[in-house]
C-alpha cells in the first residue's frame, strides 16, 4: 500500500536568513540600502532599549516600580522590523517590544509615566507596566492575554484593505503564543482574505519556563504558514539587518496585495520572563552561554565598526546621552501624582451611565469623609 503521508521531512529545513556574520562582516549582496544615519538610528535605538530595560528592571528590584518586563537580547527583532515599515503602518505588540515603540519615537517620559501608572500616563494608570498605547504612533493598546492581538492586527489590516489604503499591520508575539487558538484564527483569516498583515514571531525559545519543544512538534514556526496558504520565513533574530530585510519584503508583499507573511525570528530571551520570574528554577546559566556570544547589539556594533561608522568616542558619547535622557525621563515621569480618584469611572463607556455615576459618587463621598 502506498499512502502518501506528509511528514516534516517533506519540507526542506529552512536556514534562517542572515546578513551579518558573527564578526560583523556582511555579504554585501544581502545588505540593505541604509544610510549611516539609518544605521546609527537603529543602533542607538537598540542601545536605548537595552539601557532603559536595564534601568527600569533595577528600579523594580529596588521596589520603586511594581513590575517590569524586558526585551533583553531580542532588541534586533522588533527594532529591525518596525524600522522596515512606514510610520503609518500599524503595530500590535505583545509586551516585550519596547524597541518598536522607541523606533516610532514614543516619548520616554510617557513611557515612564505608564510604568508608574500615574497621572502623566496617557492611558490613565489603567494597566500594568509595559502595557502602553499610542494612537498617534499607530501602536495598539497592549494586552496581557497571550495572542489576543493577532486577530486585531489581521482585522486592522483588513480595514486598510477595505479602505483601499496601502497600510500594513504588524503584530509581535512569542513562540508560546503560537499555541493559542487566536494564532490559528488570525493567520487563517489572513490567508482567506489575503490581508496585508505581518505576523512577527519572536521565537525566543522560552515561554516563561516552558521550552519551545512543549509548544509545538512542528519542524519550526515558519512552516506553520503552510497551514494558512500564507508566506513563511525564518530569520536570524539577532541580526538586525536580516530582520529589516525580511520585514521589508513582507511589507512589500502585503502592499502589493500578495497577502500575509509569518516571520519567525530565532532569538533567545536572555533575561527573566519578567521581574516576577526567577529563571534559575528552570534553566541553566550555561544554556545561555552560546547566546551571549550572539548578542545582537554587540554584533551590530561590530558591523558598524566594519563599515567604519563606529568608534569608542561615538559609543561613549552615545551611552552618556542615553543615560541623561533616561535619568531625565525618570525624574520627570516619577514626579507625577497618581491618577485622580474619579478617573476610575471614566472610559468604561463613552459616557458614564447612571450606575457608574452612583458608584463614583459613593467612592468620592467616602474619600471625603476619610479626609475629615
Amino acid at each position, binding site marked *: 500500500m502506498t499512502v502518501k503521508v506528509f511528514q516534516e521531512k517533506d519540507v526542506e529545513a529552512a536556514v534562517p536568513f542572515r546578513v551579518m556574520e558573527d564578526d560583523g562582516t556582511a555579504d554585501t549582496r544581502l545588505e540593505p540600502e541604509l544610510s549611516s544615519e539609518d544605521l546609527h538610528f537603529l543602533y542607538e535605538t537598540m542601545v536605548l532599549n537595552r539601557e532603559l530595560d536595564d534601568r527600569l528592571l533595577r528600579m523594580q528590584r529596588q521596589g520603586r516600580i511594581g513590575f517590569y518586563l524586558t526585551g533583553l537580547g531580542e532588541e534586533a527583532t522588533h527594532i529591525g522590523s518596525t524600522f522596515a515599515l512606514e510610520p503609518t503602518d500599524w503595530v500590535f505588540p505583545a509586551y516585550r517590544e519596547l524597541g518598536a515603540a522607541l523606533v516610532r519615537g514614543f516619548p520616554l517620559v510617557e513611557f515612564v509615566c505608564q510604568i508608574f501608572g500615574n497621572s502623566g500616563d496617557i492611558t490613565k494608570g489603567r494597566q500594568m507596566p509595559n502595557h502602553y498605547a499610542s494612537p498617534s504612533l499607530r501602536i495598539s*493598546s497592549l494586552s496581557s492575554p497571550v495572542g*489576543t492581538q493577532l*486577530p*486585531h492586527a489581521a*482585522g486592522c489590516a483588513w480595514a486598510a484593505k477595505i479602505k483601499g489604503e496601502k497600510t500594513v499591520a504588524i503584530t509581535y508575539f512569542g513562540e508560546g503564543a503560537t499555541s493559542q487558538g487566536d494564532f490559528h*484564527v488570525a493567520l487563517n483569516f489572513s490567508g482567506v482574505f489575503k490581508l496585508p498583515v505581518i505576523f512577527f514571531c519572536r521565537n525566543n525559545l522560552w515561554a516563561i519556563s516552558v521550552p519551545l519543544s512543549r509548544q509545538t512538534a512542528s519542524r519550526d514556526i515558519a512552516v506553520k504558514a503552510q497551514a494558512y496558504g500564507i508566506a513563511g520565513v525564518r530569520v536570524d533574530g539577532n541580526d538586525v539587518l536580516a530582520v529589516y530585510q525580511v520585514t521589508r519584503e513582507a511589507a512589500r508583499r502585503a502592499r502589493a496585495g500578495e497577502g500575509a507573511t509569518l516571520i519567525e525570528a530565532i532569538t533567545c530571551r536572555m533575561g527573566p520572563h519578567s521581574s516576577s520570574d526567577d529563571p534559575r528554577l528552570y534553566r541553566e546559566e550555561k544554556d545561555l552561554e552560546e547566546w551571549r556570544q550572539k548578542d545582537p547589539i554587540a554584533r551590530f556594533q561590530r558591523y558598524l565598526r566594519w563599515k567604519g561608522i563606529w568608534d569608542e568616542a561615538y559609543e561613549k558619547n552615545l551611552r552618556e546621552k542615553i543615560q541623561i535622557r533616561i535619568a531625565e525621563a525618570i525624574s520627570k515621569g516619577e514626579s507625577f501624582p497618581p491618577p485622580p480618584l474619579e478617573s476610575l469611572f471614566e472610559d468604561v463607556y463613552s459616557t458614564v451611565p447612571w450606575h457608574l455615576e452612583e458608584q463614583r459618587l459613593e467612592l468620592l463621598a467616602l474619600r471625603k469623609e476619610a479626609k475629615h
Partner: protein
Amino acid sequence: MAEMNLIGALNNAIRLEMRRNPSTVVMGEDIAKLGGVFRVTTGLLDEFGPERVIDTPLSEGGIIGTAIGLALYGVRPIVEIQFSDFIYPGYDQIVNELAKYRYRSGGQYSCPLVIRTPSGGGIKGGHYHSQSPESYFIHTPGLKVVMPSDPYDAKGLFLSSVRDADPVIFFEPKRIYRAAKGDVPEEDYTIPLGEAKVRRAGDQVTLLTYGAMVVESLEAAEQANQQGIEVEVVDLRTLLPLDIEAVLSSVKKTGRAVIVHEAPKTCGFGAELSALIMEKAFPYLEAPVTRVTGFDTPFPYALEHDYLPSPARILKGIDYVMHY
C-alpha cells in the same frame, strides 16, 4: 409604514445603515450568499457586494477578534454570531479585549461594533440553539446589552446600537423572529438605548421582562386581568444600561414585582433586578420580588416547554406576590 416581522425589521435596519454609512460591513457565517440561517441578512450581498457583506471562516473567535481590529481602524462591523450558544469561542475576545479596550487605553481607543446574535429557546433547539447568555455580558463592564421584543423596537434599537460609541451585544429573540409582527416605518428612526417601555399598564403587580418573554408576560397579564389583577408589563429592551427609573417607578407604584427571563435563575439578570429593587425600593415592597426563570439546568430538548417560563408559571409568580 409596512407590516414587518422581527427579521424584516432587522433586515431593513441593517440595509438603511449600510446605505447611510459606507464604513459598515456585515460579517459572519452564512450571512452573505445564504442571507443568514434566519435570513436576517437576505439581499444584502446583492446590494452591497462581497467586500461589505462577508461570509467568514467558521470561527467565532476569528470573527470577533478581527472585528475588533476592523473597528479600531474605523470600519464599523455588524457581526452576526449564528446562535448565541456559539459565541463562547469568541468570549475571551469579548470580555478581555472588546469590553476593556477603551478603558485600558485611557479612552484613546474605542471599538464600536455590534454583535447581533439570536438567543433564547422555544424552537426545539436543545442545549446549543437555545441558550440565553445575557447575564455573562451584563456582568462585563464595557459592554452594552440590548434585547428587543418587537419589530418596531428592533429596528430603532438596532440603529441606535450600530451608531453607538460603545460595543453592543444585540440579542435577537429567535423564538419570535417570525411571530412578532407590527407596523414599522420604512425610514430611519432610532430608539435610545437605556429606555424601557411599558407594554401594558397596571397598578398591582410589575412584570419586568425582555425579549420573547414579553409575549408570555403579556399573556399572563391578560389572564391575571381576568382574575381582576392589574399587571404592568415593563419591557426592559436595554439590559445595560438599565432604565432604572422605569423599573423603580413601576415597582414603587405596584409594590410587587415579578421578574421573568429564560436564562437560568442563579446569577441571571433577574438576580440583579431583584437586588436593585431591594436596594432602591425596599420600603415600597408589599411582597418579596419573585423570579420566574429558566431552571438551573442546561437547556433541554424534549422538555423545553416545561423549562421555559410559561404564562402559567408567571401567573403563579403573580399570585404569590399578590397573596404574600
